[in-house]
């Protein structure tokens, strides 16, 4: 009898998963993280080395969905630390430009350069995973979230579907029912685990309950951990011209 109940539970869980395709689950989790309208947010990144806070970065991220691809385009404006103030990164499709106001020069950078540094720019860009990845359902798992609360999740395995994807492969755990993204694991081309990411503190932001913080663990050197707090989020009209590299020197200073 006990075995029958167990099998029934598994069947129900499987049926629940099949009510949504894996791609739909990813799309709904994207919608929890990102609104459909253009917006800006201020990200405060705190880097921890061996458990101690080491440095703070502050960046303003302007994000707008491209109606043609449904992927976000981003402009990132460095506000702090002072040595980086005014630097900009533009992401439009797979084209990235880095602008340094000191040299007044824009340099084209490769998608791989999004991942450079402990607080990589690729981790704070607004992206819709459903556009860049093809998801498969691994199963239902109950895992602890960043606050050590149990969450019943769909475990998804996502493979890069185009060359714009930040990572080659991502595992994702999305809470059933709420579609809250709970955890991600990102892998390199060679299959090496690069980053572990937890979302936490779901709060009212941009008209919905969204994560207000992410924790990024460097899986290669686990003494390196970065927290990202998302604040000052608000809708903002972002002109199309902002996504032209020659506009970067003209974006208003914060």
């Amino acid at each position, binding site marked *: 009898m006990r075995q029958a109940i167990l*099998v029934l539970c598994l069947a129900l869980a499987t049926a629940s998963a099949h009510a949504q395709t894996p791609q739909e689950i990813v799309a709904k989790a994207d919608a929890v993280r990102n609104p459909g309208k253009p917006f800006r947010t201020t990200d405060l990144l705190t880097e921890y080395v061996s458990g101690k806070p080491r440095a703070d970065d502050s960046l303003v991220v302007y994000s707008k969905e491209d109606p043609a691809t449904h992927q976000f385009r981003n402009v990132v404006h460095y506000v702090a630390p002072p040595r980086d103030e005014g630097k900009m990164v533009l992401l439009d499709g797979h084209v990235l430009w880095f602008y340094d106001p000191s040299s007044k020069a824009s340099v084209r950078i490769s998608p791989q350069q999004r991942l450079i540094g402990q607080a990589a720019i690729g981790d704070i860009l607004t992206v819709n995973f459903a556009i860049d990845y093809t998801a498969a359902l691994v199963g239902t798992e109950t895992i602890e979230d*960043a606050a050590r609360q149990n969450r019943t999740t769909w475990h998804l395995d996502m493979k890069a579907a185009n060359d714009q994807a930040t990572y080659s492969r991502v595992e994702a755990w999305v809470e059933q029912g709420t579609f809250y993204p709970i955890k991600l694991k990102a892998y390199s081309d060679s299959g090496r685990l690069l980053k572990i990411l937890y979302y936490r503190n779901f709060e009212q932001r941009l008209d919905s309950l969204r994560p207000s913080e992410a924790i990024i663990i460097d899986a290669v050197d686990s003494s390196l*951990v970065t927290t990202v707090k998302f604040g*000052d989020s608000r809708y903002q009209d972002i002109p199309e011209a902002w996504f032209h590299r*020659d506009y970067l020197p003209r974006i208003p200073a914060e």
Partner: protein
Amino acid sequence: MRGAAPLALAVVLAAAGARADENSDLNLIPEAAQPGAAGTPAPPSAPTAGAGSGRLYLEDTANINVIRSPLLVPAPPPPPQDWEERLFFDAREQWKLGDGLSADYSGRLNLRASDRIDIPTHENIRHDFREGYFTWTPADGLFLDAGRINLKSGVAAGYNPTDFFKTHAVVEPISQDPAVLREDRLGTAMVRASYVGERASVIAAFAPQFEHESPVFSYANLPSFDPTFGRTNAHPRLLLKGSFDFGADIAPELLLYREGANTRFGANLTRGIGQKIVAYAEWAGGEETSLVDQALGYGRATGTIPEAAPAVLPDSGRKSFRNDATIGFSYATESNVTFNFEYHYAGDAFTHADWRTWFTQGERLQAIPGVDPQLWYIRAYALDIGQPVSRQGAFLRFDWVDAFVPKLELQGFINVDLFDGSQFAQLEADYYLSNLWTVGAIAATDLGTRHSDFGSLPQAASFLVKLARYF
């Protein structure tokens, strides 16, 4: 049913194992990053709207040079410095003046001392007025600027043939890294109109002539507070450039530049190849004389070379269509290292035969006063206008973020003369002590035989340490 039970059990056990592994990742989150931990930063608020924005820092540098002696072709005075100490305050600020109007300033105030500069003299203090201009934005995407402006062009890292306003503009940089040379340079007084749209941008800039040409300065005769517009506004200059996005990662930039009676054309193109590579090409071409002609003509015009002095190298004065180009690519690794590989071609620069003549004349004519200065002046002139002395060169640069330990950045580059294999190499290390303090060091060396481009230079090596405080 008999078969389903073990299967279900296996799935449950597997899921439980996976869950335990997944939950162990939480142990990697440090206590200090837990919510409510002491020192946890508050959620970010809107950046404070201040009167201005920009970057301010104070930096102290101390460097020593290792001088090569004796030289095959002795260098004219002033002799190289054995050591130099500099303290400078660097500012880049922008102020919003309201209703689409803003003002920008960029400059550096230097205090310096060396074994070759007496104290106190006006050479101990110097202000580099890099930029000062107003911007008016009458409509979305339309910008009008007037004042001293640093207008950069080009997509390459080591040599930018289309960066037409680089000539005579670099002021005593602390590093020979091309990225630093783009930063430590004077703008040109100009009016500029820019339109940036969704798929295209157009820029028109006009710089009037209002001073005579300045001589090529050395460390010993830099003006203290003179903005030296003679370096940047000695000829009327016009630049038109446009960038057009045709989609499919095809977005060339085309340039038309006119200075005095000379016209040059230019083009820039980049293209991504996969996740890790960006390929780029930069070209400029137009009618011009050789580097020797340009240098000796400039020397005579500024009184550095006597009008009557015979030319030590052939200076036909003949104009021909000459090309300058850079082709290269960047490659980023998964280990936080980015490489740039480039081939450089400068159509007006020395050929192998020119180099042979330079050394032959240098050795033969050493006893004739006024001859050596001409030979070295040609090379100093090339450096001053940001052109390679040799026609063909290779460039390799790397930038390694979080090298060995977090917050340590290593950068280095090698310039190779492809005629003789001689090299200039520089390695720089910056360690970010905190958000406000950076400590660093630079080592550079010229490598090659005495009969080579870099091996014939007076400076064999240099070492510099620096400490910067940002505000």
